[in-house]
């Protein structure tokens, strides 16, 4: 049941991210809803589940948006695992912690693609500085508020054991 809900969440997230948010975003800067979902779900579970969700969501993102296979998966696995490591360190009922953490992971999410493109020898359309200046600040703020909106619902769902039936329902 939990897996189906998570799959549906990611599918709807991908659909919203590629259509609704693209049309209504200011200055061509769009939020990465999948990143917010991966971080939120990882913070509600552990590093193993976080990495697995990151892998699935990242691969789906690669397929749906035509990126080289593994490109977004790499980033989301790393983010999911890192967020999962922090799951035990935060109070899951306190929404500000995930909101601040997603800003950190948002920076990681903006930094890694540049290095990955260099590694895979894909020509860069922007320099890292240009990309960070243009996209990152707005996106950080967007992710902060989106996390604030969706995290309480996910947290409530987890308390009812709808997402991860075998995981602990609350952290510290």
């Amino acid at each position, binding site marked *: 049941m939990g897996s189906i809900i998570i799959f549906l969440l990611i599918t709807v997230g*991908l659909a919203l991210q590629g259509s609704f948010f693209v049309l209504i975003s200011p200055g061509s800067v769009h939020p990465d809803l999948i990143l917010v979902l991966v971080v939120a779900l990882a913070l509600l579970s552990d590093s193993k589940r976080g990495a697995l969700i990151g892998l699935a969501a990242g691969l789906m993102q690669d397929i749906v948006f*035509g990126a080289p296979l593994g490109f977004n998966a*790499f980033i989301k696995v790393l983010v999911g695992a890192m967020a999962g490591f922090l799951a035990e360190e935060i109070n899951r009922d306190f929404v500000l912690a995930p909101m601040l953490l997603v800003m950190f992971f948002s920076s990681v999410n903006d930094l890694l693609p540049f290095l990955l493109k260099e590694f895979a020898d894909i020509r860069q*359309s922007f320099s890292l500085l240009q990309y960070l200046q243009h996209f990152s600040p707005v996106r950080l703020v967007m992710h902060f508020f989106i996390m604030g909106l969706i995290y309480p619902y996910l947290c409530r769902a987890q308390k009812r054991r709808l997402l991860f039936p075998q995981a602990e329902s609350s952290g510290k």
Partner: protein
Amino acid sequence: MLAFLKKRKRMLTLFLVLTLLLVLTQRTVARQGITVAEEALLTVVAPVQGVFGRFARSVEGLLISVKGYQFLVAENRRLQDELAATLVLEARLTEFRHENHRLRQMLNFEARSEHQLIAAEVVARDPSGWFQTVSINKGSLHGVAENLAVVTSEGLVGSVLAVSPVTSQVLLLTDSRRAVSAMVQRSREPGTVGVVEANADLPGYLRMINLPRDANIQPGDTIISSGLGGIYPQGLVLGYVLEMVEEELGLLRFALLRPAANFNRLEEVFVVVPGAAPAQGSEGAF
């Protein structure tokens, strides 16, 4: 050793997965086509994207209508005038077409192959900014195939990267993985249109590279596809020359281009099926 590995099993697994993903990324950069699993996922996601996309567009349309009612009335009047003028022009065009056909027959010319156009709606776009792709709501069931050119009424947009039965992914001209063989419409200078150079002030612009210093090209020139690459038919408008820039060593020059199509507002596009006979319905030919 075994105890050490057992202790760090989770870290090692993560490291292995990340390494595999890195290798996978590198090996799939130039990949064309998709697997059955990818096809299935795209088939599931595309309709959902379509619903959200249409909803967002209607909200956007409603907001624009409310904000610019007066402007819309004036624009409506202007468009009606233009339509009337276009109808006259169309009648003349039909006459010219018939005349052209008649003259070609008289001169025993081979009829130039017409291209079938498949109309499609853009349902999603990669929001990351790192890759320039869009998804359209037409796939192999509608006759779309990989590598077909995609255009708007303004000019060339890109080519089909991957196809599933009901949806396709289009790699835009502004993606760094795409290059088109092109020439200047006025002087017919051959060259290559590459991708946008890193330039935060002019995102989404194209550049035409490998131009000799004495190339007959100037600002305002129209750049069209040369048809040499085999993917894009000849004569599709790519963009307009903004300025000429010297390469670092000064041996060659490149031209900075303003793309003909507006990549920020892609809503409806046409997939070009070369050499196919024009079909009925929403499809047309050029």
